[in-house]
């Protein structure tokens, strides 16, 4: 049985004539311990899809099954790393993580909470910055705090919504490795939403392209079965990697072209002449 299952999900925004269907007919199933990446264009409804899975939004129709049970609302079993780090700026690194720890272990005492928070902060290598405020951190460090906070909830599944989108290429590569490391340790189920095909191939077991919205739906999946841990340099020389990458990009580009050609309406211009103000 699948760990997370989306069945015939439709999501519309607005009412009456202004209804836009953002997602239609989404079917997805993720097995336990799997790392799945969903790749799509900006504005294709990726964030909506994430929010449906983590429970911030409810689907218009269809259902989200988590461990076979319909998922209602948010839950600490599905931890989220947001696109923007969404740290609370008035709390220090430790306090931000503590908020999540308290949620996951509500009955334990302060000492346990502190120890756990310190553990997760160490996991992302931020122990020296434990008392700093988010504004004193760089973008990469902030995102690591967000990772620590998501992990601190002890989620069974971790959902990442373009977690590295706002970072520079070097920090990005570093954090990808860190996330893979943490994921590799206890093989939690992971869902990564991204717009970067390379990132998807490097990190995931399966890549599923999201056809751009409105009416976004999932395309055919691509299996990525390279040995882990993967090496970026080796991957670049791997012919299978190149083939898969090209196939995915081609697929995405084709949808883009398709959408463009769909939109080629012809407009009939009225037959008008500029009025002459010169008296003849």
């Amino acid at each position, binding site marked *: 049985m699948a760990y997370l299952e989306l069945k015939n999900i439709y999501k519309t925004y607005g009412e009456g004539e202004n209804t836009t269907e953002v997602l239609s007919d989404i079917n997805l199933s993720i097995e336990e311990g799997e790392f799945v990446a969903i790749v799509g264009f900006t504005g294709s409804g990726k964030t909506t899809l994430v929010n449906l899975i*983590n*429970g*911030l939004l409810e689907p218009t129709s269809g259902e989200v099954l988590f461990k076979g049970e319909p998922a209602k*609302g*948010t*839950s*600490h079993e599905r*931890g*989220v790393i*947001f696109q*923007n*780090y*969404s*740290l*609370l*700026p*008035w*709390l220090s690194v430790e306090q931000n993580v503590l*908020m*999540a720890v308290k*949620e996951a272990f509500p009955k334990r005492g302060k000492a346990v909470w502190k120890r756990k928070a310190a553990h997760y902060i160490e996991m992302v290598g931020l122990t020296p910055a434990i*008392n700093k*405020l*988010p*504004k004193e951190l760089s973008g990469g460090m*902030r995102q690591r705090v967000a990772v620590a906070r998501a992990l601190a*909830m002890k989620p069974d599944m971790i959902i990442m919504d373009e977690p590295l989108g706002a970072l520079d290429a070097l920090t990005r590569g570093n954090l990808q490795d860190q996330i893979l490391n943490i994921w590799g340790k206890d093989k939690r189920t992971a869902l990564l939403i991204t717009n970067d095909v390379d990132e998807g191939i490097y990190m995931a077991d399966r890549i599923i392209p999201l056809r751009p919205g409105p009416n976004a739906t999932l395309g055919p999946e691509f299996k990525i079965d390279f040995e882990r841990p993967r090496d970026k340099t080796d991957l670049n020389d791997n012919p299978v990697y190149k083939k898969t990458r090209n196939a995915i990009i081609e697929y995405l580009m084709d949808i883009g072209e398709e959408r463009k050609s769909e939109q080629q309406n012809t407009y009939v211009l009225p037959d008008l002449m500029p009025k002459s103000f010169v008296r003849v």
Partner: protein
Amino acid sequence: MKQSVTVNQPAEAKWLRVIRTFFTKVNIKKPTFNLSSFLKKVGIPLVSIAVFIGIWHLGAEALKQREINFRIEKTLTDQGESAAAALKACFASNESTCQTNTLPSPSQVWSSILTLIADHYVIKQDKEAFAEKTAAVNAKREAAGKEPIVYTGRPSFVDIVITSLKTVFAGFLLAFFIAVPIGIVIGLSDKLRNAFNWFIQIFKPVSPVVWYLLVFMIVKTLLIGTSTDNSFVISFISVGLCAMWATLVNTAVGVSTVDKDYINVAKVLKLGPLQKVFKVILPSSLPLIFTGLRITLSVAWMVLIAIELLAQSPGLGLFVWEEFQNGANDSNSKIIVAMFVIGIIGFLLDRFMLTIQNMVSFNKSEGI
């Protein structure tokens, strides 16, 4: 022993951190002496103050001369040459009977400041003497369950300023305790916001004088037969009601426009409704709440003068009005002294609130 050390350490570190953040926020640096920046920061204001006093002096002189000329000419036409000459001599001798009633010069204001300070010490001594004299009687009265005799003489200028400050702080606290809770509740619920909106929109622009009259009607009746100081109660309530609107509106806006990202965090962390309010919504709206409180305090200080005047509360407002009514030689310069004191205190209060506001505010982009 060892354990107690490890337990104490984080507490101390936190305490130190609070102090450190305070100092970085207040921005106190080691003073480094730099002549050109010193001249810029101290020299230019000093020069501008000198210029201001100079213009004031010249203006006051011109006004004084105009009044003197007019009065001499009037005497000349009404009472003849000898009376006019006598008046001219009187003005020239600067006697207390021949003073102009116009804008006082800076030197007159300065001497009024000295008079007011000297006056304060005289009254203080008076009070001490009175307390000594009545100590025995008061002890007896208290033993008999009667109220002690209190000093009912004229308040000194310092007493007056203290009364005004007390009134403003009482009014500010009242505004705080009314506006912040109501603002939070209104901000949290759309329905309540719609229900209260007309109320806020109608009462916000009402003038302090009308607020005073309304409070007067109610408080006077409520306090019938009690010996409470009516004028103080009435004036601080009026000040509070006048000034609370900025805080009320700002709190409601701050609470209702909390960033969606923070709300999402609260949802994902599954915070309860109370925790959501206290851990996420309130901290994120603190900057706006404090902006509102800062406006409230400056409005309170501004309306205070008018309200004290109406309420006959012995503060700066009443002082200014009584000096104006009393028309003594130094009345005008005392009014100017009061004006400067009002201005300076208002400035200090605003600075105080600004410091607090800077300490609690954060940039939205800091967490994102």
